[in-house]
Protein backbone atom coordinates (compact mmCIF):
# COMPACT_ATOMS: atom_id res chain seq x y z
CA UNK A 1 0.00 0.00 0.00
CA UNK A 2 1.39 3.35 -0.97
CA UNK A 3 0.09 6.21 1.12
CA UNK A 4 -0.38 9.37 -0.92
CA UNK A 5 1.17 12.21 1.10
CA UNK A 6 -0.53 14.89 -0.93
CA UNK A 7 -3.41 16.30 1.09
CA UNK A 8 -2.35 14.79 4.41
CA UNK A 9 -1.28 18.13 5.88
CA UNK A 10 -3.31 21.33 6.04
CA UNK A 11 -1.55 24.66 5.70
CA UNK A 12 -2.12 28.35 6.08
CA UNK A 13 -0.08 30.30 3.52
CA UNK A 14 2.03 33.33 4.30
CA UNK A 15 4.84 31.57 6.15
CA UNK A 16 7.62 33.64 4.61
CA UNK A 17 11.06 32.06 4.26
CA UNK A 18 11.87 30.05 7.37
CA UNK A 19 14.61 27.62 6.34
CA UNK A 20 17.81 28.36 4.49
CA UNK A 21 21.24 26.91 3.91
CA UNK A 22 24.63 28.51 4.06
CA UNK A 23 26.53 26.42 1.52
CA UNK A 24 29.86 27.75 2.74
CA UNK A 25 29.35 25.97 6.04
CA UNK A 26 28.04 22.71 4.56
CA UNK A 27 30.49 19.82 4.84
CA UNK A 28 28.49 17.41 2.71
CA UNK A 29 27.79 14.97 5.51
CA UNK A 30 24.40 14.22 3.91
CA UNK A 31 22.59 13.87 7.25
CA UNK A 32 19.87 16.31 6.20
CA UNK A 33 19.10 14.08 3.20
CA UNK A 34 18.34 11.17 5.50
CA UNK A 35 16.19 12.79 8.16
CA UNK A 36 13.72 14.84 6.15
CA UNK A 37 10.42 12.96 6.19
CA UNK A 38 9.26 14.94 3.16
CA UNK A 39 12.48 14.48 1.21
CA UNK A 40 12.97 18.21 0.78
CA UNK A 41 16.77 18.21 0.92
CA UNK A 42 18.48 17.18 -2.31
CA UNK A 43 21.96 16.96 -3.70
CA UNK A 44 22.98 17.98 -7.17
CA UNK A 45 26.53 18.00 -8.47
CA UNK A 46 27.81 17.62 -4.94
CA UNK A 47 25.83 20.56 -3.64
CA UNK A 48 23.06 20.34 -1.04
CA UNK A 49 19.97 22.39 -1.65
CA UNK A 50 16.45 22.76 -0.29
CA UNK A 51 13.46 22.09 -2.52
CA UNK A 52 12.05 25.33 -3.86
CA UNK A 53 8.50 24.51 -2.81
CA UNK A 54 9.48 23.60 0.75
CA UNK A 55 7.04 26.12 2.24
CA UNK A 56 4.12 24.10 0.94
CA UNK A 57 5.53 20.69 1.90
CA UNK A 58 7.58 21.12 5.08
CA UNK A 59 6.25 19.60 8.32
CA UNK A 60 8.09 22.18 10.48
CA UNK A 61 9.83 19.41 12.42
CA UNK A 62 13.23 21.18 12.36
CA UNK A 63 15.02 17.83 12.03
CA UNK A 64 17.21 19.26 9.26
CA UNK A 65 18.30 22.15 11.45
CA UNK A 66 18.90 19.84 14.42
CA UNK A 67 20.90 17.24 12.51
CA UNK A 68 23.29 19.68 10.87
CA UNK A 69 26.30 19.76 13.15
CA UNK A 70 28.06 22.11 10.76
CA UNK A 71 25.46 24.78 11.54
CA UNK A 72 24.78 25.26 7.84
CA UNK A 73 20.99 25.06 8.12
CA UNK A 74 19.07 28.01 9.50
CA UNK A 75 15.58 27.38 10.79
CA UNK A 76 12.99 29.59 12.41
CA UNK A 77 9.31 28.85 12.56
CA UNK A 78 6.89 30.27 9.97
CA UNK A 79 5.27 33.60 10.82
CA UNK A 80 2.84 33.35 13.74
CA UNK A 81 -0.52 31.88 12.73
CA UNK A 82 0.73 30.44 9.41
CA UNK A 83 2.11 27.12 8.22
CA UNK A 84 0.92 23.63 9.09
CA UNK A 85 -2.27 22.97 11.03
CA UNK A 86 -2.29 19.69 12.88
CA UNK A 87 -5.86 18.67 13.55
CA UNK A 88 -5.30 15.12 14.73
CA UNK A 89 -1.96 15.27 16.46
Amino acid at each position, binding site marked *: *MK*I*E*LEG*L*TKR*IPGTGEFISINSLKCNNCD*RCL*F*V*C*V*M*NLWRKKEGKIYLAEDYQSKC*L*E*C*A*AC*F*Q*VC*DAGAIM*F*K*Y*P*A*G*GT*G*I*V*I*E*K*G
Partner: protein
Amino acid sequence: MNTYDLIIVGAGPGGSVAAKIAAEKGLKTVFFERGRKPGEKNSSGCGLGPRMFRDFPEMMKKLTPEKCHSMRAGVAARNYFVNKDDIVAGYIMARPTESVSYEPAKSWITMNVYRSEFDPWIAEFATDAGAELKTSTLIIDLLKENGKVSGVIDDKGEKYKAPIVIGADGAVSTVAQKSGLRSKWSQNQVTLTLQYDFQAPSEKIDDIMGDETLAVWWGSNFPASYQVFFNDGFHQGLGNWMTWWDKTPLFYLNRVVNLKYYQRLLKILDAKPRELQAHLLPWLDYPYNTYTDGIILIGDAGGFPCPLEAEGIYPAMVTGKIAAEVAAEAVSSGDFSKESLKKFDEGWKKTSIGEEFEAGAELWNIWKALPFSPKETMSWFVPMIMEILGGIFDWSQPHGKRVRQIISHVKSYMPKATPFIMKNVFPLVAKIFEDDLDKIMDPKKIMKVLPKLLDMLPQKKKRRGSQEK
Protein backbone atom coordinates in the same frame (compact mmCIF):
# COMPACT_ATOMS: atom_id res chain seq x y z
CA MET B 1 1.95 48.89 28.13
CA ASN B 2 3.14 45.35 27.41
CA THR B 3 4.65 44.95 30.85
CA TYR B 4 4.23 41.80 32.90
CA ASP B 5 5.61 40.02 35.95
CA LEU B 6 6.16 36.85 33.99
CA ILE B 7 6.40 35.89 30.31
CA ILE B 8 5.91 32.31 29.19
CA VAL B 9 6.82 31.32 25.64
CA GLY B 10 4.72 28.37 24.46
CA ALA B 11 1.17 27.28 25.25
CA GLY B 12 1.65 23.53 25.37
CA PRO B 13 0.78 21.63 28.55
CA GLY B 14 3.90 22.95 30.31
CA GLY B 15 3.31 26.61 29.45
CA SER B 16 -0.37 26.44 30.28
CA VAL B 17 0.14 24.88 33.71
CA ALA B 18 2.86 27.41 34.49
CA ALA B 19 0.57 30.27 33.37
CA LYS B 20 -2.34 28.97 35.43
CA ILE B 21 -0.33 28.66 38.62
CA ALA B 22 1.48 31.97 38.15
CA ALA B 23 -1.82 33.78 37.56
CA GLU B 24 -3.35 32.13 40.63
CA LYS B 25 -0.40 33.41 42.62
CA GLY B 26 -1.25 36.90 41.48
CA LEU B 27 1.48 37.38 38.86
CA LYS B 28 0.58 39.43 35.82
CA THR B 29 1.25 36.68 33.31
CA VAL B 30 1.25 36.40 29.52
CA PHE B 31 1.84 33.26 27.49
CA PHE B 32 2.49 33.04 23.76
CA GLU B 33 1.58 30.51 21.11
CA ARG B 34 2.76 30.57 17.51
CA GLY B 35 -0.29 28.63 16.31
CA ARG B 36 -3.69 30.26 15.88
CA LYS B 37 -4.73 28.27 18.89
CA PRO B 38 -2.85 26.03 21.29
CA GLY B 39 -2.37 22.49 20.00
CA GLU B 40 -2.43 23.08 16.27
CA LYS B 41 1.34 22.76 15.99
CA ASN B 42 1.67 19.76 18.25
CA SER B 43 1.63 16.07 17.58
CA SER B 44 2.00 13.43 20.18
CA GLY B 45 0.24 10.12 20.58
CA CYS B 46 -1.03 11.93 23.63
CA GLY B 47 -1.45 9.14 26.04
CA LEU B 48 -2.09 10.94 29.29
CA GLY B 49 -0.62 8.96 32.16
CA PRO B 50 -2.23 8.20 35.52
CA ARG B 51 0.31 10.37 37.36
CA MET B 52 -1.34 13.43 35.83
CA PHE B 53 -4.64 12.46 37.37
CA ARG B 54 -3.01 11.82 40.74
CA ASP B 55 -1.03 15.06 40.85
CA PHE B 56 -3.44 17.42 39.06
CA PRO B 57 -6.79 16.01 40.20
CA GLU B 58 -8.75 19.28 40.13
CA MET B 59 -7.93 19.82 36.48
CA MET B 60 -7.96 16.28 35.24
CA LYS B 61 -11.34 15.36 36.66
CA LYS B 62 -12.75 17.96 34.28
CA LEU B 63 -11.35 16.17 31.24
CA THR B 64 -14.45 14.56 29.78
CA PRO B 65 -15.46 13.27 26.35
CA GLU B 66 -17.87 16.23 26.15
CA LYS B 67 -14.85 18.56 26.30
CA CYS B 68 -12.49 16.40 24.27
CA HIS B 69 -14.39 14.27 21.76
CA SER B 70 -11.36 12.31 20.72
CA MET B 71 -10.86 10.86 24.20
CA ARG B 72 -10.52 7.11 24.55
CA ALA B 73 -9.27 5.23 27.59
CA GLY B 74 -6.37 2.90 26.95
CA VAL B 75 -7.09 -0.04 29.19
CA ALA B 76 -4.96 -2.80 27.78
CA ALA B 77 -1.87 -2.77 25.60
CA ARG B 78 -1.01 -5.14 22.81
CA ASN B 79 2.60 -5.94 22.12
CA TYR B 80 3.22 -7.36 18.68
CA PHE B 81 6.56 -9.05 18.10
CA VAL B 82 7.61 -8.74 14.48
CA ASN B 83 10.48 -10.89 13.23
CA LYS B 84 13.08 -10.12 10.60
CA ASP B 85 10.88 -11.49 7.86
CA ASP B 86 8.31 -8.85 8.84
CA ILE B 87 5.95 -11.50 10.17
CA VAL B 88 4.05 -10.95 13.40
CA ALA B 89 5.59 -13.85 15.30
CA GLY B 90 3.28 -13.41 18.27
CA TYR B 91 1.72 -10.92 20.59
CA ILE B 92 1.08 -10.30 24.24
CA MET B 93 -1.90 -8.39 25.51
CA ALA B 94 -1.36 -6.82 28.91
CA ARG B 95 -3.78 -5.25 31.37
CA PRO B 96 -2.83 -3.54 34.61
CA THR B 97 -1.46 -6.30 36.83
CA GLU B 98 -2.14 -7.24 40.43
CA SER B 99 0.79 -5.27 41.81
CA VAL B 100 -0.49 -1.92 40.50
CA SER B 101 -0.98 0.21 43.60
CA TYR B 102 -2.67 3.41 42.41
CA GLU B 103 -6.38 2.64 42.40
CA PRO B 104 -7.48 4.39 39.16
CA ALA B 105 -4.53 2.88 37.27
CA LYS B 106 -6.02 -0.54 37.92
CA SER B 107 -8.68 0.14 35.34
CA TRP B 108 -6.79 2.05 32.64
CA ILE B 109 -3.25 2.72 31.43
CA THR B 110 -3.62 6.01 29.55
CA MET B 111 -6.25 8.46 28.37
CA ASN B 112 -5.74 9.10 24.69
CA VAL B 113 -6.73 12.47 23.29
CA TYR B 114 -5.70 14.63 20.33
CA ARG B 115 -3.56 17.64 21.19
CA SER B 116 -5.79 19.88 19.06
CA GLU B 117 -8.40 19.34 21.79
CA PHE B 118 -6.25 18.82 24.85
CA ASP B 119 -4.00 21.88 24.51
CA PRO B 120 -6.84 24.44 24.17
CA TRP B 121 -8.64 22.70 27.04
CA ILE B 122 -5.65 22.98 29.36
CA ALA B 123 -4.85 26.57 28.24
CA GLU B 124 -8.33 27.60 29.33
CA PHE B 125 -7.44 26.93 32.97
CA ALA B 126 -4.71 29.53 32.63
CA THR B 127 -6.88 32.15 30.94
CA ASP B 128 -9.66 31.48 33.48
CA ALA B 129 -7.11 32.16 36.22
CA GLY B 130 -6.36 35.52 34.59
CA ALA B 131 -3.31 34.82 32.44
CA GLU B 132 -3.29 36.51 29.04
CA LEU B 133 -2.88 34.23 26.00
CA LYS B 134 -1.48 35.66 22.79
CA THR B 135 -1.91 33.31 19.85
CA SER B 136 -0.56 33.55 16.26
CA THR B 137 2.47 35.13 17.91
CA LEU B 138 5.94 33.80 17.20
CA ILE B 139 8.54 34.89 19.71
CA ILE B 140 11.86 35.33 17.94
CA ASP B 141 14.22 36.78 20.52
CA LEU B 142 14.83 37.83 24.10
CA LEU B 143 15.09 41.48 25.11
CA LYS B 144 17.98 42.44 27.32
CA GLU B 145 18.74 45.52 29.38
CA ASN B 146 22.16 46.00 30.98
CA GLY B 147 22.93 42.39 30.11
CA LYS B 148 19.83 41.16 31.92
CA VAL B 149 16.78 39.50 30.42
CA SER B 150 13.97 42.04 30.27
CA GLY B 151 11.40 40.44 27.98
CA VAL B 152 10.76 39.06 24.51
CA ILE B 153 10.09 40.29 20.99
CA ASP B 154 7.75 38.75 18.43
CA ASP B 155 8.10 38.36 14.67
CA LYS B 156 6.14 41.55 14.05
CA GLY B 157 8.53 43.55 16.21
CA GLU B 158 6.18 43.88 19.17
CA LYS B 159 7.99 43.97 22.52
CA TYR B 160 6.83 42.50 25.81
CA LYS B 161 8.58 43.19 29.08
CA ALA B 162 9.07 41.08 32.19
CA PRO B 163 12.03 40.37 34.48
CA ILE B 164 11.67 36.63 34.05
CA VAL B 165 10.90 34.37 31.06
CA ILE B 166 9.86 30.74 31.17
CA GLY B 167 10.83 28.82 28.03
CA ALA B 168 7.92 26.42 27.47
CA ASP B 169 8.51 26.46 23.75
CA GLY B 170 9.19 22.80 23.19
CA ALA B 171 11.96 20.81 21.52
CA VAL B 172 13.25 23.62 19.30
CA SER B 173 13.26 26.25 22.01
CA THR B 174 13.96 29.82 20.95
CA VAL B 175 14.33 30.76 24.62
CA ALA B 176 17.03 28.11 25.11
CA GLN B 177 18.86 29.30 21.99
CA LYS B 178 18.67 33.00 22.68
CA SER B 179 19.57 32.71 26.35
CA GLY B 180 22.70 30.77 25.44
CA LEU B 181 21.59 27.75 27.48
CA ARG B 182 21.70 25.53 24.40
CA SER B 183 22.10 26.19 20.69
CA LYS B 184 20.76 22.76 19.81
CA TRP B 185 20.64 19.26 21.27
CA SER B 186 23.41 16.73 20.83
CA GLN B 187 22.29 14.20 18.25
CA ASN B 188 21.73 11.52 20.89
CA GLN B 189 19.60 13.78 23.08
CA VAL B 190 16.68 14.19 20.72
CA THR B 191 14.57 11.90 18.60
CA LEU B 192 12.68 12.51 15.41
CA THR B 193 9.21 11.03 15.70
CA LEU B 194 6.74 10.78 12.89
CA GLN B 195 3.28 9.38 12.71
CA TYR B 196 0.29 8.80 10.51
CA ASP B 197 -3.13 9.51 11.83
CA PHE B 198 -5.71 7.09 10.43
CA GLN B 199 -9.38 7.77 10.46
CA ALA B 200 -11.57 4.82 11.52
CA PRO B 201 -15.20 4.54 12.58
CA SER B 202 -15.62 4.60 16.33
CA GLU B 203 -17.81 1.46 16.33
CA LYS B 204 -15.22 -0.49 14.36
CA ILE B 205 -12.56 0.37 16.91
CA ASP B 206 -14.94 -0.66 19.71
CA ASP B 207 -15.73 -3.97 18.03
CA ILE B 208 -12.27 -4.93 16.86
CA MET B 209 -9.97 -3.51 19.52
CA GLY B 210 -12.35 -3.51 22.46
CA ASP B 211 -10.46 -1.84 25.27
CA GLU B 212 -7.06 -2.83 23.85
CA THR B 213 -6.46 0.68 22.68
CA LEU B 214 -2.71 0.87 22.80
CA ALA B 215 -0.20 -1.22 20.94
CA VAL B 216 3.51 -1.40 20.46
CA TRP B 217 4.91 -3.13 17.39
CA TRP B 218 8.31 -4.43 18.47
CA GLY B 219 10.07 -4.78 15.15
CA SER B 220 13.27 -6.34 13.85
CA ASN B 221 13.37 -4.05 10.83
CA PHE B 222 12.04 -0.82 12.33
CA PRO B 223 12.33 0.91 15.70
CA ALA B 224 9.44 0.05 18.05
CA SER B 225 6.30 1.61 16.65
CA TYR B 226 3.37 2.69 18.80
CA GLN B 227 -0.30 2.64 17.96
CA VAL B 228 -2.68 4.78 19.96
CA PHE B 229 -6.44 4.68 19.48
CA PHE B 230 -8.68 7.71 19.83
CA ASN B 231 -12.41 7.97 19.53
CA ASP B 232 -12.53 7.95 15.73
CA GLY B 233 -9.01 7.22 14.63
CA PHE B 234 -5.54 6.14 15.61
CA HIS B 235 -1.89 7.05 15.35
CA GLN B 236 0.83 4.83 14.04
CA GLY B 237 4.21 6.32 14.74
CA LEU B 238 7.85 5.68 15.41
CA GLY B 239 11.01 7.57 16.19
CA ASN B 240 14.67 7.27 16.95
CA TRP B 241 17.63 9.43 17.92
CA MET B 242 19.07 11.66 15.24
CA THR B 243 22.18 9.48 15.12
CA TRP B 244 20.23 6.42 14.03
CA TRP B 245 18.60 7.20 10.71
CA ASP B 246 20.22 5.59 7.68
CA LYS B 247 17.18 5.98 5.45
CA THR B 248 14.31 8.41 5.45
CA PRO B 249 12.07 7.99 8.51
CA LEU B 250 9.08 7.46 6.26
CA PHE B 251 10.72 4.32 4.87
CA TYR B 252 10.59 2.75 8.33
CA LEU B 253 7.07 3.91 9.16
CA ASN B 254 5.81 2.58 5.84
CA ARG B 255 7.48 -0.71 6.63
CA VAL B 256 5.14 -1.05 9.64
CA VAL B 257 2.10 0.01 7.69
CA ASN B 258 2.94 -2.49 4.97
CA LEU B 259 3.17 -5.49 7.27
CA LYS B 260 0.63 -8.02 6.04
CA TYR B 261 -0.87 -8.20 9.49
CA TYR B 262 -1.16 -4.42 9.61
CA GLN B 263 -2.80 -4.23 6.22
CA ARG B 264 -5.42 -6.69 7.42
CA LEU B 265 -6.00 -4.55 10.50
CA LEU B 266 -6.43 -1.44 8.34
CA LYS B 267 -8.93 -3.30 6.22
CA ILE B 268 -11.11 -4.61 9.01
CA LEU B 269 -10.94 -1.27 10.84
CA ASP B 270 -11.99 0.44 7.63
CA ALA B 271 -9.09 2.84 8.26
CA LYS B 272 -7.91 5.62 5.93
CA PRO B 273 -4.81 7.81 6.28
CA ARG B 274 -5.84 11.27 7.43
CA GLU B 275 -2.71 13.15 8.52
CA LEU B 276 1.08 12.90 8.57
CA GLN B 277 3.04 14.60 11.33
CA ALA B 278 6.70 14.83 12.28
CA HIS B 279 8.10 16.34 15.45
CA LEU B 280 11.29 16.39 17.47
CA LEU B 281 11.08 14.82 20.91
CA PRO B 282 13.91 15.39 23.39
CA TRP B 283 14.93 12.10 25.03
CA LEU B 284 17.78 12.55 27.49
CA ASP B 285 19.37 10.53 30.22
CA TYR B 286 19.39 13.66 32.36
CA PRO B 287 18.22 17.26 31.86
CA TYR B 288 20.93 19.94 31.97
CA ASN B 289 21.23 23.74 31.68
CA THR B 290 17.62 24.30 32.65
CA TYR B 291 17.95 27.80 34.12
CA THR B 292 20.08 30.91 34.10
CA ASP B 293 19.65 34.59 35.02
CA GLY B 294 16.01 35.48 34.38
CA ILE B 295 15.28 32.24 32.48
CA ILE B 296 13.78 28.84 33.31
CA LEU B 297 13.27 26.05 30.76
CA ILE B 298 10.45 23.56 31.34
CA GLY B 299 8.97 20.52 29.59
CA ASP B 300 10.50 19.63 26.25
CA ALA B 301 12.48 22.88 26.16
CA GLY B 302 14.27 21.72 29.31
CA GLY B 303 14.66 18.09 28.16
CA PHE B 304 12.26 16.57 30.68
CA PRO B 305 10.53 13.69 28.85
CA CYS B 306 10.90 10.38 30.69
CA PRO B 307 14.29 8.73 29.99
CA LEU B 308 12.72 5.31 29.37
CA GLU B 309 9.79 5.94 27.08
CA ALA B 310 9.65 9.71 26.65
CA GLU B 311 6.29 10.37 28.26
CA GLY B 312 6.51 14.14 28.15
CA ILE B 313 3.22 15.76 29.00
CA TYR B 314 3.23 14.99 32.69
CA PRO B 315 6.87 16.13 33.12
CA ALA B 316 6.01 19.35 31.28
CA MET B 317 3.14 19.97 33.69
CA VAL B 318 5.20 19.19 36.79
CA THR B 319 8.13 21.35 35.73
CA GLY B 320 5.67 24.09 34.69
CA LYS B 321 4.20 24.10 38.16
CA ILE B 322 7.57 24.30 39.87
CA ALA B 323 8.82 27.01 37.52
CA ALA B 324 5.74 29.13 38.25
CA GLU B 325 6.25 28.75 41.99
CA VAL B 326 9.93 29.68 41.72
CA ALA B 327 9.03 32.65 39.47
CA ALA B 328 6.47 33.87 42.01
CA GLU B 329 9.10 33.76 44.75
CA ALA B 330 11.54 35.61 42.54
CA VAL B 331 8.95 38.30 41.80
CA SER B 332 8.27 38.84 45.47
CA SER B 333 11.96 38.96 46.40
CA GLY B 334 13.00 40.86 43.27
CA ASP B 335 15.88 38.41 42.81
CA PHE B 336 15.93 36.86 39.31
CA SER B 337 19.52 35.74 39.41
CA LYS B 338 20.69 32.30 38.41
CA GLU B 339 21.49 31.70 42.06
CA SER B 340 17.87 32.34 43.04
CA LEU B 341 16.42 30.30 40.17
CA LYS B 342 18.40 27.21 41.04
CA LYS B 343 15.42 26.45 43.28
CA PHE B 344 13.83 25.22 40.06
CA ASP B 345 16.33 22.37 39.73
CA GLU B 346 16.14 21.63 43.43
CA GLY B 347 12.36 21.52 43.09
CA TRP B 348 11.92 19.10 40.22
CA LYS B 349 14.56 16.77 41.58
CA LYS B 350 12.28 16.15 44.56
CA THR B 351 9.33 15.13 42.39
CA SER B 352 8.56 11.84 40.71
CA ILE B 353 10.31 13.27 37.63
CA GLY B 354 13.47 13.62 39.68
CA GLU B 355 13.11 10.05 40.87
CA GLU B 356 12.70 8.88 37.28
CA PHE B 357 15.97 10.53 36.26
CA GLU B 358 17.90 8.97 39.13
CA ALA B 359 18.11 5.88 36.94
CA GLY B 360 17.98 8.05 33.81
CA ALA B 361 21.14 6.79 32.15
CA GLU B 362 20.26 3.13 32.71
CA LEU B 363 16.67 3.52 31.51
CA TRP B 364 17.81 5.49 28.47
CA ASN B 365 20.43 2.85 27.64
CA ILE B 366 18.07 -0.06 27.73
CA TRP B 367 15.56 1.63 25.46
CA LYS B 368 18.31 2.53 23.05
CA ALA B 369 19.77 -0.97 23.09
CA LEU B 370 16.52 -2.87 22.72
CA PRO B 371 13.48 -1.41 20.92
CA PHE B 372 15.53 1.28 19.15
CA SER B 373 18.13 -1.19 17.90
CA PRO B 374 15.93 -3.32 15.68
CA LYS B 375 18.59 -4.94 13.56
CA GLU B 376 21.22 -5.40 16.26
CA THR B 377 18.98 -6.59 19.07
CA MET B 378 15.34 -7.13 18.19
CA SER B 379 16.29 -9.44 15.33
CA TRP B 380 17.40 -12.10 17.87
CA PHE B 381 15.28 -10.94 20.78
CA VAL B 382 11.98 -11.53 18.98
CA PRO B 383 12.63 -15.16 18.00
CA MET B 384 14.08 -15.82 21.47
CA ILE B 385 11.03 -14.44 23.25
CA MET B 386 8.70 -16.24 20.89
CA GLU B 387 10.56 -19.50 21.44
CA ILE B 388 9.93 -19.12 25.15
CA LEU B 389 6.34 -17.96 24.85
CA GLY B 390 5.15 -19.87 21.86
CA GLY B 391 7.53 -22.76 21.31
CA ILE B 392 5.33 -25.22 23.11
CA PHE B 393 2.53 -24.77 20.58
CA ASP B 394 3.88 -27.43 18.32
CA TRP B 395 2.24 -30.81 18.07
CA SER B 396 4.68 -32.54 15.79
CA GLN B 397 6.78 -33.98 18.64
CA PRO B 398 6.15 -35.38 22.11
CA HIS B 399 6.00 -32.44 24.53
CA GLY B 400 9.11 -33.50 26.43
CA LYS B 401 11.10 -33.43 23.27
CA ARG B 402 9.70 -30.02 22.39
CA VAL B 403 10.78 -28.65 25.76
CA ARG B 404 14.31 -29.89 25.15
CA GLN B 405 14.34 -28.44 21.65
CA ILE B 406 13.12 -25.09 22.95
CA ILE B 407 15.66 -24.93 25.76
CA SER B 408 18.54 -25.86 23.55
CA HIS B 409 17.42 -23.26 21.02
CA VAL B 410 17.07 -20.56 23.67
CA LYS B 411 20.56 -21.44 24.86
CA SER B 412 21.86 -20.77 21.37
CA TYR B 413 20.91 -17.12 21.87
CA MET B 414 23.02 -16.82 25.01
CA PRO B 415 26.18 -15.53 23.28
CA LYS B 416 24.07 -12.54 22.24
CA ALA B 417 21.80 -12.30 25.25
CA THR B 418 24.49 -12.55 27.94
CA PRO B 419 26.53 -9.49 26.97
CA PHE B 420 23.27 -7.62 26.42
CA ILE B 421 22.07 -8.44 29.92
CA MET B 422 25.43 -7.57 31.47
CA LYS B 423 25.66 -4.28 29.66
CA ASN B 424 22.07 -3.11 29.93
CA VAL B 425 20.04 -5.05 32.44
CA PHE B 426 22.40 -5.48 35.39
CA PRO B 427 23.27 -1.78 35.67
CA LEU B 428 19.58 -0.95 35.72
CA VAL B 429 18.80 -3.54 38.36
CA ALA B 430 21.73 -2.32 40.43
CA LYS B 431 20.55 1.28 40.18
CA ILE B 432 16.94 0.53 40.97
CA PHE B 433 17.77 -1.61 43.98
CA GLU B 434 20.63 0.71 44.90
CA ASP B 435 22.85 -2.31 44.95
CA ASP B 436 26.53 -2.26 44.34
CA LEU B 437 27.02 -2.64 40.62
CA ASP B 438 30.45 -4.18 41.07
CA LYS B 439 28.93 -6.86 43.22
CA ILE B 440 26.34 -7.80 40.66
CA MET B 441 28.48 -7.18 37.63
CA ASP B 442 31.63 -8.93 38.77
CA PRO B 443 32.35 -10.76 35.50
CA LYS B 444 34.10 -13.60 37.28
CA LYS B 445 31.05 -14.22 39.36
CA ILE B 446 28.74 -14.02 36.39
CA MET B 447 30.83 -16.33 34.32
CA LYS B 448 30.81 -18.76 37.21
CA VAL B 449 27.09 -18.61 37.80
CA LEU B 450 25.79 -18.41 34.28
CA PRO B 451 27.18 -21.66 32.89
CA LYS B 452 25.98 -23.38 36.06
CA LEU B 453 22.53 -21.99 35.56
CA LEU B 454 22.59 -23.20 32.01
CA ASP B 455 23.88 -26.57 33.10
CA MET B 456 20.91 -26.96 35.35
CA LEU B 457 18.83 -27.00 32.23
CA PRO B 458 18.86 -30.46 30.73
CA GLN B 459 21.70 -30.88 28.27
CA LYS B 460 20.68 -34.18 26.86
CA LYS B 461 17.40 -35.88 26.57
CA LYS B 462 16.63 -38.26 29.38
CA ARG B 463 15.99 -41.80 28.28
CA ARG B 464 12.31 -42.35 28.77
CA GLY B 465 11.22 -44.46 25.87
CA SER B 466 13.19 -46.54 23.44
CA GLN B 467 11.89 -44.93 20.26
CA GLU B 468 12.82 -41.38 21.31
CA LYS B 469 16.08 -40.11 19.87
